[in-house]
């Protein structure tokens, strides 16, 4: 176990119970991203680089503030800037900190074929253990948010860990610690939902009548949540999916079908064996040999 102080709730490609003995269990945690408070300073990106020792390549300017332009194996969180006119002549600059959502029902973990390469801690954090990763990219197929990235350098998948190493010893994630406006807060999931309710009430008072918490039920809720000013239009925020869920194709591929198909293969072998010992081999009859 990479983090011995954290219980594991789910482990990729494992059909027996994961290590889960601690009596007190764990309290589900969550990061709350209040988009209405974000000023796009990217301090969280820098803190993430610093704590996790990541240095992405210096890219090119694409005419927007998005820098780097996309998540990579070296950039686990990225600010996505959207200029929108929700009402005529009223420009809004929506800045969404993108990264792993830490789904309660993680599609990456479901899709992963390597035992223990992806774990979900009892506190809800979904973590990649790269030493077990085989580089197949199935997690990319499973993720409803397009988050995991395979490194060009070592062919392992990387993404935000929600600073599981910090959380395990009672610290908040690096991005939370550094946020200068309080747009990022961290705590138990219950507390974060409560905190969001206060923020949403405040936003509604200020005229954002559709302000809402983004905690999509299609993936069992997430351990990274957003406060959206326009909760009725999540797509405005750099195409945040309205109702994300694990693709039915992934469920078909990784669900009950594979044990059944494996059983089918075994059955075919047994059917052959028992056919041989009952019906017997097909031998050429004697009279044909002489005629």
């Amino acid at each position, binding site marked *: 176990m990479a983090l011995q102080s954290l219980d594991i709730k789910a482990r990729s490609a494992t059909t027996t119970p994961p290590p889960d003995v601690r009596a007190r269990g764990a309290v589900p945690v969550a990061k709350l991203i209040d988009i209405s408070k974000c000023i796009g300073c990217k301090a969280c990106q820098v803190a993430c680089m610093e704590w996790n020792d990541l240095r992405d390549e210096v890219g090119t300017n694409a005419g927007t503030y998005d820098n780097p332009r996309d998540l990579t194996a070296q950039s686990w969180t990225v600010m996505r800037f959207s200029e929108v006119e929700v009402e005529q002549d009223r420009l809004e600059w929506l800045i969404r900190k993108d990264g792993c959502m830490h789904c309660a029902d993680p599609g990456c973990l479901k899709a992963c074929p390597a035992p223990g390469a992806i774990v979900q801690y009892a506190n809800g954090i979904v973590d990649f253990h790269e030493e077990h990763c085989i*580089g197949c990219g*199935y997690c990319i197929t499973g993720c409803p948010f397009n988050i995991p990235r395979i490194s060009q350098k070592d062919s392992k998948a990387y993404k935000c860990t929600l600073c599981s190493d910090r959380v395990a010893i009672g610290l908040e994630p690096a991005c939370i610690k550094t946020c200068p406006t309080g747009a990022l807060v961290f705590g138990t999931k219950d507390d974060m939902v409560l905190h969001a309710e206060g923020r949403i009430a405040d936003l509604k008072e200020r005229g954002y009548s559709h302000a809402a918490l983004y905690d999509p039920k299609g993936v069992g809720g997430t351990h990274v949540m957003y406060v959206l000013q326009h909760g009725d239009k999540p797509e405005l925020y750099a195409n945040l999916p309205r109702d994300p869920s694990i693709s039915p*194709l992934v469920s078909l591929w990784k669900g009950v*079908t*594979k044990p059944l198909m494996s059983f089918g293969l075994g059955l075919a072998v047994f059917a*052959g064996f028992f*056919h041989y010992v009952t019906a017997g081999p*097909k031998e050429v009859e004697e009279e044909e040999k002489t005629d």
Partner: protein
Amino acid sequence: MSKPVQRYTARERSNHWIVAIAFVLAGLSGLALFHPAFFFLTNLFGGGPWTRILHPFIGVVLFLFFMAMAARFWRFNHFTAADRQWMARIGDVIRNRDRGLPEIGKYNAGQKYLFWTMVVSIPLLLLSGIVVWQPWFAPYFPIWLLRIAVVVHALAAWIMILGIIVHVYAAIWVKGSVRAMTRGTVSEAWAKHHHRAWYRQMTGK
């Protein structure tokens, strides 16, 4: 002892066994990533990452040599009226009641079904495999296509493995068949009994 009948040339046999070896390797490395119950098979290939690296290359070898083999055997695999009559009596064939079966050519209907199953599934495996091939090709395809490709790949592989289980069992079951692919010949009696139309064509009898 009657003279054996030539069924496969040395080139045909080599081609078949390259396909067979590639199939076993691709099958074992593929099953390793198919379900956790088979993950231990990655040990045969030097661990998880090596299994992931080698599997697609083995698959490409399988595809190339299978296509060469399919081209060789294509013309013997068209269905005929005799095949349909033979298929109607498949129950008797399975129960070893072969008396009065129609005269059939080089391949029976079961063998032909296997042939066409492979002709469809192996190119499907290649195409879907290229789409999910990390790290070379997968990054160039959209995620929705990856999701379709993994399902197509698993399904086509499953059908193919089932087909090969039947193929291998049939070779064990029908005595005198294996030597066709190991030594190239079958006995006259075998040829007469199982593929009489082909036997007539080969011997002029």
